């Protein structure tokens, strides 16, 4: 079965893995401590250049050298690596959870493997992530896919053609789906996009429910656009999908979500520039051109929107304030001058200690069911976004 390529990759994973095993074996044969190295995926090893547009890894690596404490991890890594290599060989795919159970099955079948057993999925997940970071390969390139979440898309103009593993092609005209969304699989790279008519913009809405409401009220009927629900922190699928739209259609993309530190820092930043945890894959899983449409601090005043107090004595609130302050100091994305408008919003949030939800647009003119759409369009028209 032909495998779908996620990107043009000059890396031959089975060959790399074999070379790695060979090197470790040689070390052992001459009583040297073998080691594994992987890119350090954390904020302190993240770099941001606005011309590149997403977070890229620095020079730091995590080195795991064989000793009595690390022997368990190393054994688990090569154990899992063997499973992944076999999957690549025969063209089988799995989710992380499935891999967790595959390990369990193998361990159950052989008493010698018993000590390797994973107590819960987080343990096997971290081994899979480590292998990805070590080989600098995407999880998808190891035939390991995440569950689909988010990315529900509506449009009257968009036609998607999917190349199937068996060589067939499937074509979906989104205008034929009514109020049902099209949801990209977590392999958006296998999709080809075409616009039946010029598409003016793409709107990504944080709340999938609100995206659905806009669609029901005829948003895509009145506008030549792509409307998408993100469903919270964008999954790999959503991020890859937005990247694809950016690459293949070249339409301006706007994000509409809550005005709070969590949305700016976790949801919007991840969509625009990727995350520290996925440093090696941000190039294909971020949409650097996306703009933050709102809710903006200016909107709160302009439309007299209802806000909530962020209380410093509330544990969750205090934590988010602290995280926002940390982001201003340590996150290269927010430290970059190019993103000053965004870091200004964080500063405003820290100073005012309020938050405002995207749904508050619905209070502006409660009797007009498409008031929110009107506000969004007006903002796009006036360039009222950052």
């Amino acid at each position, binding site marked *: 079965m032909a495998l779908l390529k996620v990107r043009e990759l000059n890396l031959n994973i089975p060959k790399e893995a074999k070379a790695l095993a060979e090197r470790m*074996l040689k*070390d052992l044969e001459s009583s040297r401590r073998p080691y594994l190295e992987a890119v350090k995926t954390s904020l302190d090893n993240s770099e941001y250049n606005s011309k590149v547009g997403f977070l890229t890894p620095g020079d730091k690596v995590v080195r795991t050298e064989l000793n*009595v404490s690390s022997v368990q991890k190393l054994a688990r890594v*090569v*154990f899992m690596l063997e499973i992944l290599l076999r999957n690549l060989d025969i063209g089988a795919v799995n989710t992380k959870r499935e891999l967790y159970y595959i390990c369990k099955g193998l361990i159950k079948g052989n008493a010698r493997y018993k000590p390797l057993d994973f107590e819960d999925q987080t343990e096997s997940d971290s081994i899979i992530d480590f292998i990805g970071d070590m080989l600098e390969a995407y999880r998808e390139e190891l035939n390991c896919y995440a569950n689909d979440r988010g990315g529900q898309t509506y449009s009257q103009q968009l036609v998607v053609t999917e190349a199937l593993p068996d060589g067939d092609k499937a074509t979906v005209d989104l205008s034929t789906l009514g109020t049902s969304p099209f949801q990209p699989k977590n392999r958006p790279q296998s999709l080809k996009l075409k616009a039946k008519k010029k598409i003016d913009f793409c709107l990504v809405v944080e709340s999938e429910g609100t995206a659905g409401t806009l669609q029901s009220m005829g948003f895509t009927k009145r506008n030549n656009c792509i409307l998408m629900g993100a469903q919270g922190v964008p999954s790999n699928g959503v991020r890859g999908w937005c990247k694809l739209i950016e690459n293949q259609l070249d339409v301006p993309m706007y994000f509409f979500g809550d005005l709070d530190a969590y949305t700016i820092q976790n949801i919007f930043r991840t969509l625009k520039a990727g995350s520290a945890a996925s440093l090696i894959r941000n190039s294909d899983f971020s949409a650097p051109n996306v703009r933050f449409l709102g809710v903006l601090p200016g909107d709160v005043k302009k439309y007299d929107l209802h806000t909530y107090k962020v209380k410093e004595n509330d544990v969750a609130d205090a934590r988010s304030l602290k995280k926002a302050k940390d982001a201003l100091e340590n996150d290269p994305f927010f430290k970059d001058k190019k993103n000053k408008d965004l870091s200004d919003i964080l500063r405003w949030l820290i100073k005012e200690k309020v938050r405002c939800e995207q749904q508050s647009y619905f209070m502006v003119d409660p009797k007009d069911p498409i008031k929110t759409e009107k506000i969004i369009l007006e903002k796009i028209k006036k360039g009222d976004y950052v």
Partner: protein
Amino acid sequence: MSKITKSSTAEYFAKNLQQVGFSSPLKAVLTTLKEAVDNSLDACEQHEILPELEVEVTKVGVGSTKNTDLIKIVVEDNGPGIEADDLAKVFGEYLASSKFGRGQCSRGQQGIGISAATTWAQMTNAKGVQVISKTKGMRKAISAQVDVDIKTNTGILRNKEMIDWKNKSNGVRVEFLMDGRIQLNGDGGLLTYIEGTVLLNPHVTVKYKLADADWVKTERVSNVTPEIPEATLPHPHTFKLGEFITHSHLYGKISLSKFLKTGFSRISDQSIKDFIKAGMPKALADKTLTSMSEEDFKKVFQAIQATQLMAPSTKSVLTVGEEALSKSINRLGQVDFFSVMTRKPTICDFKPVVVEVALARFVNRGAEDQPVQLLRFANRVPLQFDKSGCAITWAIESVNWKSYGLAQPKDSLPLGSYVFAVSVVSPFIKFKNASKETIDASDELVEEIRRALMQAGQKLSRHIKHEMKEADLERKLAHIEQFGPILVEKLVLIAEANDSRRKKAEDGLKKILGRDSEAAMSDLEDAQSKLAEQKKKQAKITGEEGEEVVETSEDTAEEQSKKTETKKTKK
């Protein structure tokens, strides 16, 4: 105007029994048992008798009050016995005590407890206490029922008869029938009380039957009756003006200077000169007490407070001692390891105090994730209620037990299958209430208890660290055995290598990990030798080498560890 009436002391207590430990059916049973046992132990100690107690607490029927049982509480001792003439006073009259305000470290102090128990029995079951008593001088034992005459605060003897008593030469047996309820375990439990009493009284043999359980006998581990130190005179700095004047009334028509010298400790002729320097009118020194005005007393009192005096003597306190505690702790169950600490007597808030701590981990007791069992003692009496307000609890919570290897949630008791026993002994313990349930927490006292705990904690940590190192080594060795071959097997598979390379790699792996386990082994040996050093000291304390003196606080655990280190470097 309404008529002002005067009520007797007995009337007051009968209406306020909750103040002296009778606030619930559960507490009533525990308090009665406690008062009876306290009295027995105090009496035995005063007559240097090794106490043998028989305790029985059983449910015999339904109580008269709602939701209560009729409980029988029997305590029998081999003490000196009580003279027939004194029975009514001891059991039926409030504030009739041989111990009131004497400044001795006895368990009982005021003479309220046992009379309150009699009152409770009388109020709930219409019968006071059934007593049998025999002194050496009596030919036959006296058996009688004692009731409290509430109106007059006097005891009444009923059904008095002389009986033959099991060939016993001397002793007292009390039997209460009262409304109450039995709780065995937990902070306020009867078993907790018995265990606490057993722990702090190594010289006691006790046979007990609680509720439906069988008789249990715990033998003494020490044949020495604690020597009750002489009573001390009060230190003037512990007094308030009112007390000072009242105290003077006890001395009648003598001169002020004589009163100060004989009525207080630590006042000499020199001190009186110092008082004069501090503003006491010189003429007052020779004035008789009876002719002094309140104004005069105030001047004297102020001058005394402004003058530095020697701290009171610490001779009036007694300790159980590390040796006896070490032995006694084994009576509570199978001990894994333990550490005991007896501090030197010291002064807190101008009162002599001594703190003793025993920390022990038991094999079949408590749980890893539960708070340690805390046993608190004041003058060797277990304190079982209102733990959170007690100086002892505060001190424990202020120590960082994590550094000794114990888990501890923030500002709480540490966790684990341990018993923490902390005893505070002082002739003048400040309780928060008359039922003697919590020790008032002054900064000085909390600090003193804290120090004792830390020293005991250091000793304990030797055991814990040794154990951790042992587990660590075991884990490391197991890791090598378990994971090494899998690592090699999979590497060989991925690298498509042959069998001879596999063998070579396995040998290499063994070499590498062998080096690591050797390092862990030497860590363990290190911990072992430190522990052995401590055990040697412990052995000395528990008297295995005869005449060794009980170690005191001067030689702290910290210093001990320093010594161990220097010894090592010398090697």
